């Protein structure tokens, strides 16, 4: 270091500032000073100006402005100089100036009211920009609030709520009664939660079961049927219901046993289960909303009309209908709505007219049609 210093000194004319040299070499100032001092000790240094001392004296003398920014930050870093900011206030007389001091009140109190002293006291102004204190309240779950809204819409349209308080269902009511064939992929292990315990349904309405069996395997009621071997064991298998349409089937079956036939409007909103792995867009449990109308002479036009009223109550007015396929409805329609934000048509529901193969074995009269639609709450 000392040699470096001497060499630099040789190269320069005049003198060298130790701090500047340190910065140039990228070294610690202390190292340079150390080198200077060691040279001094050797007695070969003529004179040495303590730059730092000079600078500090400048400051003390009130001439701090003479120091450059670099020098100042250098001294600051070495804790030899501390910059202190002095804030001063310019005080002048205001309009309500008085020489006596009075404390401002923050709030009205009962004593002030009864004594009337509020008339003579000054009050601290409110800061209206601050937040208030939120009330300590309980909350309803947002999804369930939406469920309440849907319930309200159905009730306003004259629909009666169906009993759906059974998560466990037999394959018969969940699939077979809906004319969904036993080899249908939805009845796979992958898509449906089957039960280990209780594994099989204990009771089924056997004469109805026979009619369903015949319709699947041989046809009837004007249908060719699926023409396969229908197995009772398969229908007995218990599962977690995959749709609330099974509850609708039970309700329609009960309706069919009542003579004479009376038209009905049913709805339900309840939990259904699908054997999915959970990810950002898939749940294993979710809520299905279902609406059903059973009456004489219902048409596809009626279904579209009901859907239009239903969705209008949700604020969805632009609707389009697309042909679709469900094992238990024919004709079937997917309902699309125009999403202003996404600027495209998105599917908002599925609907259809229940197949005669489903309704007639229940015992419903032949000219009764049942229209239905469903969507998911989530």
């Amino acid at each position, binding site marked *: 270091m000392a040699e470096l210093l001497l060499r630099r000194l040789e190269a320069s004319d005049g003198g060298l500032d130790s701090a500047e040299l340190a910065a140039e070499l990228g070294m610690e100032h202390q190292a340079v000073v150390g080198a200077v001092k060691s040279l001094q000790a050797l007695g070969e240094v003529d004179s040495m100006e303590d730059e730092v001392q000079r600078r500090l004296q400048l400051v003390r003398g009130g001439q701090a402005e003479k120091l450059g920014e670099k020098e100042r930050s250098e001294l600051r870093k070495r804790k030899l100089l501390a910059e202190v900011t002095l804030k001063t206030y310019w005080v002048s007389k205001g309009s309500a100036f008085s020489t006596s001091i009075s404390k401002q009140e923050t709030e009205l109190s009962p004593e002030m009211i009864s004594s009337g002293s509020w008339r003579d006291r000054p009050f601290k102004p409110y800061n209206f920009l601050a937040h208030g204190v939120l009330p300590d309240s309980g909350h309803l779950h947002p999804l369930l609030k939406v469920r309440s809204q849907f319930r309200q819409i159905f009730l306003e349209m004259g629909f009666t709520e169906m*009993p759906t308080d059974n998560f466990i269902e037999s394959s018969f009511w969940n699939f077979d009664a809906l004319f969904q064939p036993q080899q249908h992929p939805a009845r796979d292990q992958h898509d449906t939660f089957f039960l280990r315990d209780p594994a099989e349904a204990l009771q089924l309405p056997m004469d109805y079961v026979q009619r369903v069996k015949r319709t699947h395997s041989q046809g009837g009621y004007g249908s060719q049927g699926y023409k396969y071997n229908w197995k009772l064991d398969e229908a007995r298998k218990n599962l977690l219901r995959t749709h609330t349409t099974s509850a609708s089937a039970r309700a329609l079956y009960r309706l069919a046993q009542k003579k004479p036939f009376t038209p009905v409007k049913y709805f339900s909103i309840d939990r259904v289960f699908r054997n999915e792995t959970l990810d950002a867009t898939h749940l294993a449990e979710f809520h299905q909303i279902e609406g059903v109308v059973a009456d004489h002479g219902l048409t596809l036009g009626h279904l579209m009309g009901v859907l239009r009223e239903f969705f209008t109550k949700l604020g969805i007015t632009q609707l389009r209908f697309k042909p679709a396929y469900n094992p238990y409805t024919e004709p079937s329609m997917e309902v699309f709505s125009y999403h202003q934000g996404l600027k495209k048509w998105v599917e908002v529901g599925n609907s259809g007219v229940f197949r005669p193969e489903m309704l007639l074995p229940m015992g419903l009269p032949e000219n009764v049609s049942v229209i239905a639609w469903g969507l998911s709450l989530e």
Partner: protein
Amino acid sequence: MPTVSVKRDLLFQALGRTYTDEEFDELCFEFGLELDEITSEKEIISKEQGNVKAAGASDVVLYKIDVPANRYDLLCLEGLVRGLQVFKERIKAPVYKRVMPDGKIQKLIITEETAKIRPFAVAAVLRNIKFTKDRYDSFIELQEKLHQNICRKRALVAIGTHDLDTLSGPFTYTAKRPSDIKFKPLNKTKEYTACELMNIYKTDNHLKHYLHIIENKPLYPVIYDSNGVVLSMPPIINGDHSRITVNTRNIFIECTGTDFTKAKIVLDIIVTMFSEYCENQFTVEAAEVVFPNGKSHTFPELAYRKEMVRADLINKKVGISLWFVHSFFRETPENLAKLLTRMYLKSEVIGDGNQIEIEIPPTRADIIHACDIVEDAAIAYGYNNIQMTLPKTYTIANQFPLNKLTELLRHDMAAAGFTEALTFALCSQEDIADKLGVDISATKAVHISNPKTAEFQVARTTLLPGLLKTIAANRKMPLPLKLFEISDIVIKDSNTDVGAKNYRHLCAVYYNKNPGFEIIHGLLDRIMQLLDVPPGEDKGGYVIKASEGPAFFPGRCAEIFARGQSVGKLGVLHPDVITKFELTMPCSSLEINVGPFL
């Protein structure tokens, strides 16, 4: 929904015109299809395996079209084009004919050994067919699509297609011991026995899924020709000897399976789709199948079925006649017949002018009832052209009493300062048993047989675990945490028709630096107040009595009795329960069955 991938330009070429993507999307919407994705082979590989592997792959634009699951006739380019052309009235639907051969008819003899494993088989011949690379690819692809779809992954039906010129009939379909079957399978260079093949294919990503269909059976199905050449070992693999290539001129098709109806449908679909490329267009050469009982049948069936539907029925079901006012909206029987013909259901008006006779082709196996015909008429008319009307059904709405009560209680619980939670009805066994200090067999819980994760082993028998897990996930929130849920639990019950029953429970928890038993107790008092249940057992009201429970801290648990029965428990939770649910603060809970209060 099955997805068919077609080359866009080939599609447009066959349709005789080009479309913009929007125009084609619109056409699909009308017809009941969905243009799911516009991509290319390069893009697909790039997405799945990265850009490096994709370099050199084809840039040709592919349309991925979603097709309804019951339309087997739309699973290939040929079918899509034919369907759309008929829909747009650009061509007349071709009539498919089965013809007898000039020479000897091909025979497939089924022996009785197949009865136990794969009893049914049908067969047909496509004579003088002309393939190009695209047509060949389409032929192979259709078989794969059918296998995945109607054949239920080859379990119900398996298709085998063979170069007839490399074989000589009659063919025998039998079943033999695996060690007795030896042949050179497709894409292999030497012969193997069936046992060896089963082992080899265990690691084949494509074929390993089908091995289970015959693996553990004593006899495996196999088809031979008269020279002992193996055509195939269904449903696993075909023989290499009879493989078809782009140059194949005559094809022998066999479909074997466990569902006779489906085997016939599958055969009909393949031959109708590809007979377009035969020299004698849309004809299929017959083949004879001899069953073990000696009876023989000729295939393919290619049955055209006739159904009669009244025109006014269609009008009524769809709603395209408003008989009370605008009669000019009614579709005449002639128009309806035209609409159906556009849907590949050739129709004409007969009889008194009100009946329509519809001919259902073998490609429309999905038409099994008049309602299917009604749907097709509506599609051709255009769903969005149908007038929307409201049913005149007059009904008074009723709420389901249990739900009505739940709604009222929910609002009052929130008013009492508790926050509603929504938790899963399925949970792990530990959640309802071990973590609460009970044995799983004592819970009478419903067990699921095939959960994808351990989180869904049982249906919950109590709402408490769900709420405790919710608290655990919200530990950082300011205390106290006051949660509630009113929802169903499931208990096994042999008195119901399915063997289990739902009960509507109300559960509330208070989680804070102090357990807050008095707060939970106060909540119970408030609930009883709302339910109009007075305090005092003698007045038919409610009372709480000191009790015990493995989930509760000793001496700080009580059972709730109302209207003469036990409806639930409340208390301070046992520290074991708290730690098992990964919580740290004291907690008290309340759970009651809402049902008795209806």
